[in-house]
């Protein structure tokens, strides 16, 4: 008897799930496309309008330049999926670039290690403050935004720190492998890693669970604190790599670099269709979002070079704001339509 009744419930459920299959899957897919569409439009527009836009040189320079931002955004994506936020990344990039600069005399690997360890340590501290001291991520990492900046300036004695240009250190930025700049390998590997972690490891799913419903995650016996700790550590580590690339690119540790990177990263993640409330998100779309927001700067430079109109930096700021608005609106539209 019970079974018969249950079958009726079941049929209801099936109808329901088919019905709902649409919006949950389609939604996130479309949100990703929101950024993708914009990116494609931008590239096509640029290639048609500007000479020298669609050249190997330009593509390489744009991609390598945005690698640092993309790495930071990847870390941010995981933090946000866990229901948190990391405002310290910009300062951490600055700090780790300084550390890398000091360590550069011992060669690339040791510099890389030093910077990544520093970033990880900072991330662990953030995670500890958030998970164990129960201080909201926004404040905890806001404080770290100040502290890491201060530490960077302190270590660098308020100046830039020269890197060793005689050994292999700067090759991480300037060398190429199979005609592809080294930084791009970092970009690809980092995101491939991110995809695997998110979709094929317990950790990835648990991050989403914590972001989706922390209490539930705890009652299900997930080590919520440890998961948070690792997420922030990951963000710190990626910022560390970005710091190394920055130092290699500029021949210096830059204690004052990375201002406002945290917001760019958050924007990239959101433009990629990840919910700031946590529990849902996409790695691939974060890359798209980050490239999208990076490309707009290049576009503005080319537009000025185009000589048609000269946009003052002030107008450029306005345009960037409007652009962000358009992309975000486009996305919510698409998401809404399907829903």
């Amino acid at each position: 008897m019970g079974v018969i009744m249950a079958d009726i419930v079941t049929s209801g459920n099936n109808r329901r799930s088919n019905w709902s299959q649409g919006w949950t899957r389609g939604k996130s897919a479309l949100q990703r496309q929101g950024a993708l569409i914009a990116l494609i439009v931008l590239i096509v527009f640029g290639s048609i309008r500007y000479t020298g836009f669609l050249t190997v040189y330009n593509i390489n320079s744009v991609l390598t330049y945005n690698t640092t931002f993309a790495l930071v955004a990847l870390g941010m994506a995981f933090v946000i999926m866990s229901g948190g936020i990391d405002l310290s990344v910009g300062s951490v990039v600055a700090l780790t670039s300084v550390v890398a600069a000091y360590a550069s005399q011992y060669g690339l690997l040791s510099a890389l290690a030093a910077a990544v360890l520093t970033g990880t340590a900072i991330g662990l501290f953030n995670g500890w403050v958030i998970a164990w001291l129960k201080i909201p991520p926004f404040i905890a990492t806001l404080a770290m935004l100040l502290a890491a900046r201060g530490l960077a300036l302190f270590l660098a004695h308020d100046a830039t720190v020269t890197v060793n240009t005689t050994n292999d250190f700067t090759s991480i930025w300037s060398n190429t492998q199979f005609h592809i700049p080294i930084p791009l390998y970092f970009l690809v590997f980092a995101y491939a890693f991110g995809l695997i972690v998110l979709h094929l490891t317990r950790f990835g799913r648990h991050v989403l669970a914590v972001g989706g419903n922390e209490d539930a995650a705890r009652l299900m016996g997930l080590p919520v604190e440890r998961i948070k700790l690792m997420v922030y550590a990951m963000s710190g580590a990626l910022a560390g790599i970005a710091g190394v690339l920055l130092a290699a690119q500029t021949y210096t540790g830059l204690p004052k670099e990375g201002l406002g990177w945290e917001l760019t990263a958050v924007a990239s993640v959101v433009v990629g269709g990840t919910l700031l409330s946590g529990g849902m998100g996409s790695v691939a779309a974060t890359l798209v979002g980050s490239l999208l927001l990076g490309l707009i700067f290049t576009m503005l430079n080319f537009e000025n070079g185009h000589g048609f109109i000269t946009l003052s930096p002030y107008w450029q700021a306005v345009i960037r704001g409007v652009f962000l608005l358009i992309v975000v609106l486009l996305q919510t539209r698409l998401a809404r339509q399907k829903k």
Partner: protein
Amino acid sequence: MVKVDQVLTPKAPATRRSPVPERLRTFFATYPTLIALVLLIIFNVIVTPHFVSLQSLYLNLTQVAPTIIVATGMTLVIATGGIDLSVGSLMAIAGALAPAIFLGKFVPLPLDWYINILAAFVAILVVALFGLFNGVLITVFRIQPIIATLILFIAGRGIAQVMTNGSIQDYDNAGFNFIGRGSLLGIPFQVIIALVVVVAGALLVKATIFGRYVQAIGGNEAAARLAGIPVSTVKRMVYVLSGVLAAIAGLIYIAVNSSSDANQVGLNAELDAIAAVAVGGTSLLGGSANIPGTLIGALIIQLIRTTLISNNISFDIAQMINAAIILLAVYMQRRRKS
């Protein structure tokens, strides 16, 4: 082993201590911050040379007044579960607009007291509209507050710079500068404004429906809507309010310098305000608004700044100490998250 129908001797029902009533609770939330403030003052009295003087009181109060005003608005925004990153840029817009008006950049006007009022009024009105813009993005287009306000955070300062072409507008207008430089009965006028704003804000939260609605929305939006609360309207009003207060702060800011630099007005104001709110014991998760706390929070942050500068602590160390104190203050009154 198991005694069937065993009836344990029923004890008298447990006596229940009544928990601290709401007022007290908010007071205790404020309490640790108060202690921190007092400690800071004592520290300064001992360490900082010439700290105990009307001069330094005046200095600290005037320097912190704009932050207090902005932070009050930020408290309400945060109480609804939102955030407003655009306040700094909005300050810049107000700061760029008012002089442009009374200097007759749009229409030549006589430099007269009512023109000053007009200029201030128009500036506030326009910025209020920008606040509404934030509110609409959030309520109508359902864009998350950080991103929605990030748009004006980026574009807003640009707008102000475009208006002034990035150059500094110097002017000579004692009448207008009164809001930044004048004083009534020996109290700096901007301090009076700040106090009025704080008191009004506190009353708003304590006594009015609006205050209740703000906290209810931050606490559980779905429930608030089902209880008949006009969620969208309330949210929009909150962002407009935040805009208006930012505008006032912006006007004070330029009046103090008697010049308006779109690149500088309100730079990092959002961080100061958010820090003040958090240090003041308002949960960033929304659902509560502690305006007196915010006042104290702002004072603490201001006092740290002066302490560090006047004791010649270099910027880098200062930053780290700043961070430590913010963490400490928030830690002292964090509320157990459910």
